[in-house]
């Protein structure tokens, strides 16, 4: 996965929409080089001084952008993602919620065949504080530069935990919301492997929730690969009922599949410190790093 560096040109798809506009401004304020936007039929306009093009191909040709942030409505996300990946986008960040599962799987197949990566959908995006890179909707004040990598399946919980890390003096090398859907463009295992190779990162905070078996798979991967960086995890949903979607499409327990207890047990068995509340994360991290 190619993460952008300071000054790298970034594309925003559906820039003239309500959220595209708002977050173009907030990303620019953070110092991110939002170089172009797209929206079919709106080429020639500009948003916050950033030119808007009709197609991704045109925007990529004009700016050399390799990463795109999508604020495209769910029903058009498949077409928009195919357009971006076909035009050479290597990192596609999909903020959009409610993308159909089969559309996500098609995008994932296309990304794999082109060696590109997808983050999301249904996620807050990616932030690299030291590089002033923000590809998403997270509130900047919660984050600060540092050596902890944070990933989460949830948006606000990412901000909450990043804010607590920041207050406790633990800045972040990178923070990513991988998405709250049953399918994630980048899985926890893929993400943790990426972080393992990051020299500027000394520890990882993994934030999961009920639903699926991503955390159980992560636990097996940690054991098998001999993961070397200390990990602190938090899993939301210990008191969630079964068979109910808890806000996120992916946060649902079927029978005994997807319970918080199963995830916590698996992670603990793999040597991961598991916080029982978000507020406990910084203290456990301190322990893990001492």
């Amino acid at each position, binding site marked *: 996965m190619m993460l952008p560096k300071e000054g790298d040109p970034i594309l925003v798809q559906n820039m003239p929409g309500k959220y595209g506009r708002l977050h173009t401004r907030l990303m620019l304020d953070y110092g991110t080089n939002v170089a172009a936007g797209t929206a079919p039929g709106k080429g020639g306009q500009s948003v916050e001084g950033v030119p808007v093009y009709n197609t991704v191909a045109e925007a990529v040709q004009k700016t050399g952008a390799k990463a795109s942030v999508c604020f495209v409505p769910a*029903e058009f996300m498949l077409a928009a993602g195919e357009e971006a990946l076909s035009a050479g986008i290597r990192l596609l960040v999909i903020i959009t919620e409610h*993308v159909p599962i089969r559309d996500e*799987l098609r995008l994932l197949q296309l990304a794999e065949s082109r060696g590109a990566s997808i983050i999301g959908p249904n996620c807050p995006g990616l932030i690299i504080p030291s590089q002033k890179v923000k590809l998403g909707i997270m509130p900047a004040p*919660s984050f600060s530069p540092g050596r902890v990598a944070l990933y989460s399946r*949830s948006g606000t919980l990412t901000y909450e935990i990043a804010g607590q890390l920041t207050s406790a003096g633990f800045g972040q090398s990178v923070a990513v919301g991988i998405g709250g859907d049953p*399918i994630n463009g980048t899985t926890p295992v893929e993400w943790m492997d990426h972080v393992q190779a990051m020299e500027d990162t000394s520890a990882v905070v993994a934030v999961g929730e009920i639903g699926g078996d991503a955390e159980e798979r992560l636990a097996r991967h940690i054991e098998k690969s001999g993961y070397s960086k200390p990990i602190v995890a938090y899993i939301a949903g210990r008191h969630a009922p079964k068979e109910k979607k*808890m806000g996120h499409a992916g946060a649902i327990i079927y029978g005994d599949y997807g319970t*918080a207890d199963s995830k916590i047990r698996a992670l603990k068995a793999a040597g991961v410190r598991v916080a029982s*509340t978000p507020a406990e994360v910084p203290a456990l991290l301190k322990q893990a790093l001492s």
Partner: protein
Amino acid sequence: MRLFEYQAKQLFKQYGLPVPKAVLVHDLDGVRGALASLTLPVAIKSQVLAGGRGKAGGIALVDDPGQAEREASRIFGLSIGGEKPDSLLVEESYPHVNEMYLSVSLDRGDRAFVTIAASAGGINVESMAGKVIRKISLDGIDASFAAEVASLLRLPPDQSSQFASILLSLERLAREKECELAEINPLAVGKDGTLMPLDAKVIIDDNALFRHPEFAKLHPEDEFEGEASRQGFAFVRLGGDIAVVGNGAGLVLSTLDLVGDAGGNPACFLDLGGGAQQERIEAALRLVNRLPGVDRILINIYGGITRTTDVAAGINTVLAEGVVKPVYARVSGAEEDEARRLLAGTPVRMYRTAPEAVEAVVKGA
């Protein structure tokens, strides 16, 4: 969206899958009418979405009309996982010698659709012996794929061809209707070797419903769930006395855990969504304020794109409308001091951290 069994079986019929002869009824008169057109014995099956209806007594096999009425009356009175059956499926029983399993479902971990088949069914798919799992292309399967799965199950030739054709139909249904799960459990083998799906479980991908307007009106909606979905809130009723409201699914989920750990009983989960503005806070408060059973309201907001001052203004508007149940609020993030000032002098109890707010709301202090 999960379909009721009878709805799933209607879909099965559309896709050429066999189903037992059955009549859907809404009352005891309906049961009597159904028996006139069906051959006894019949199964009386509660139509609920909750799992474990068999264990909960929601299915009865009956041999005569008197017993049918007694059992139907008993099942209408049940609460299965909190759900009262509005309807029963009266279905001819299918004498059989074996039960198999077949499904098409999303495998989240492998990020692919799979078919799972087993020649011996059971309640728990995880522990089914000798099951066959095969990945399915997004573009579907062909006859040779289906025949291969059938051969792996080592079925007799006549059953093998029936099985392959059932798998082809089920896969087409799952793909065209964008199901997360289409399951036949059990798939019964009759005395003469004829395969017959006895139960049907179908879950449609909620996010794909815009492409399937035919499912829009299938479910009677709870008044509060309907209201919440019109407002764009993620909302789940939980039955306790503390309404839990926040911004962001994960944050609200973690707040439920704090409440549960402190010994409290959440009445609902309400996620306002990202970037919630003043009107949305107001709508959410009005909704939980009139939700039956709610005694206290807990608000947990981590302000980012959601402005904490909007939250405070929203709370104030609803307070000004009259009686509001006690509100315990943790409002944190940008402009929180200003938000706090806006709420000073109101009955709202304000806390700096989520654990503090939770401790107070659970005690009811």
